């Protein structure tokens, strides 16, 4: 009798040892490319003060200079060093991206697990989520930010809120699926109480899809921040972020292209890295993808 059902969700195949890394990178090019690139960007952002000048000091007389030895990418409309701002901008954009992804993932996880497990709570929550999802992200963000004035904190909240329903819906479907799996019933038979079942048997299987969704949310967050800054409600002007750099320098496309392309390319590369990581993680965790590749 061939075994009836191959395992559906990710099955860890033994301990992960450092010696595995070369083999894994060859097997999962997407994950290694994505995480490598992302690691590089994070290091760049953290080491910003070392390798870049002062992103904030203004010198109106040296406005819109072409790239020079002193300022590698030239200066922007307020005479600030574009290279320094691009690197410092990495901090804000990555922080906005990662933090809103994390908060959306956490909130989504919480709501999803509870909705997945208690029927009554489920209906109420799903209707609220529908409502929340129906308000376009950009407009919700604009309304929220105009409520309290621009700032990174509110920006992260404004980006995280519209992303939470998607995560909650994903986690809920995973929990509903896993709840029926025999090993959860076996744990119940063994006398395990609800919190232990949730923590030890149900939550771990929500982590892989959550990481994949997290990558997408992070990519969305960085893009939304850029979009909001373009509409003038994003990160406050003196704090350099790729979004508000692109937004404020779009008039100088012809005169000083680097002011828009430097942050633009960094933005695209970061979002690309996060998406590569997301795609790679999805293939890594989806056993069916492994069988087909």
């Amino acid at each position, binding site marked *: 009798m061939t075994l009836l059902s191959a395992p559906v969700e990710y099955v860890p195949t033994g301990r992960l040892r450092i010696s595995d890394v070369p083999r894994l990178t060859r097997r999962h090019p997407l994950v290694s490319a994505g995480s490598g690139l992302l690691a590089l960007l994070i290091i760049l952002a953290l080491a910003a003060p070392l390798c870049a000048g002062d992103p904030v000091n203004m010198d109106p007389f040296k406005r819109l200079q072409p790239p020079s030895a002193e300022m590698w990418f030239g200066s922007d409309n307020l005479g600030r060093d574009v290279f320094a701002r691009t690197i410092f901008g990495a901090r804000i954009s990555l922080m906005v991206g990662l933090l809103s992804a994390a908060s959306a993932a956490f909130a989504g996880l919480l709501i999803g697990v509870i909705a997945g497990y208690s029927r009554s709570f489920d209906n109420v929550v799903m*209707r*609220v989520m*529908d*409502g929340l*999802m*129906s*308000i*376009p*992200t*950009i*407009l919700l963000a*604009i*309304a*929220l930010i*105009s*409520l309290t*004035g621009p700032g990174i904190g509110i920006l992260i909240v404004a980006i995280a809120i519209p992303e939470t329903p998607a995560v909650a819906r994903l986690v809920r479907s995973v929990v509903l699926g896993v709840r029926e799996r025999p090993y959860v019933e076996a744990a119940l038979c063994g006398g395990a109480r609800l919190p232990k079942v949730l923590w030890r048997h149900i939550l771990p299987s929500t982590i892989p899809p959550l990481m994949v969704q997290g990558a997408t949310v992070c*990519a969305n967050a960085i*893009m939304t921040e*850029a*979009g909001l800054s*373009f*509409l003038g409600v994003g990160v406050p002007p003196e704090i350099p972020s790729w979004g508000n750099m*692109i937004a404020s320098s*779009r008039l100088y*496309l012809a005169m000083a292209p680097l002011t*828009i392309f430097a942050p*633009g390319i960094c*933005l*695209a*590369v970061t*979002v*690309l890295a996060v*998406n*590569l990581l997301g*795609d790679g993680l*999805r293939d890594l965790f989806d056993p*069916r*993808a492994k*069988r*087909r*590749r």
Partner: protein
Amino acid sequence: MATYILRRVVSTVAVMVMVGVFVFLLLRLAPGDPADIIAGPRATPEMIAGIREQLGLNQPLAIQFVHWALGILGGDLGTSIFTGRPVLELISQRLEPTISLSLLTIILSVTIGVSFGVLAAWRSGGLVDRILTAFATLGFSVPVFVVGFFLIYLFAIRIRWLPVQGYQPIDHGFGPWVVHLILPTVTLSVPYIAFIARIARASMLEVLSEDYMRTAAAKGASAYSMLFHHALKNAGVPILTVIGLSFAGLIGGVVITETVFNIPGVGRLVVDAINNRDYPIIQGVLILVSGLYVLINLAVDLSYTLVDPRIRY
């Protein structure tokens, strides 16, 4: 089926009410109000207070809400504080460009997105798959306005094939209408082609590994019929879902595209209204958008029955 639709329509109204209340409160708490804007930069605080009085903005919130809600029930979305025109009229003026842009974008995104997805799934693991997946990831990674300005720079300025901005209503002739919408549609479609292609590829790969595909092969079915006849219809449900989601997300993208290409659509109307704190317009548009969104979801759910006989309501 009828009871299901009834239940869904009722929940649509509920969602719209919820959105209405949420937006109403959100705006009232936001700093600044229409009186400031109308009075102009050189008005003294007293003048502003006077205008606020006349506009009835300092009545207690509850009364304002009730007044507005009653208006809604009567189908009157209130009048725009800034232009004095009924909100419904302002929105209907701006509907045609937004709907044209959204429809063309969805049509373009679905046709190209789905065919990319199917092709990538069929050639899974091969070069074609890698290229299409890379494009999909890239398409998803570039902000809409960067794509927009790039296309303007290239097509409108450099080689002057297409107009830079503006919108020609369709009754001025199909030609100018389409020509003006080409660049904005392509700009807005790039992220959605990527989004739909990724989901289409994933669901096609899922279906191609099912047992009944092996049965079809054992019957001697050709590659074409296996792909488009057997597999695509089974992958229909997830693809329809992603199309529904794209429609919903479109409103956000439309706002930026209308700004870049100067299309007088609803997106632009809302952004200006937010800058002018023109509450009635903001509330009106957001409610209509949320209602539209939930109805789109209902349409998508009902369309499932066309694709998959197992789904009955």
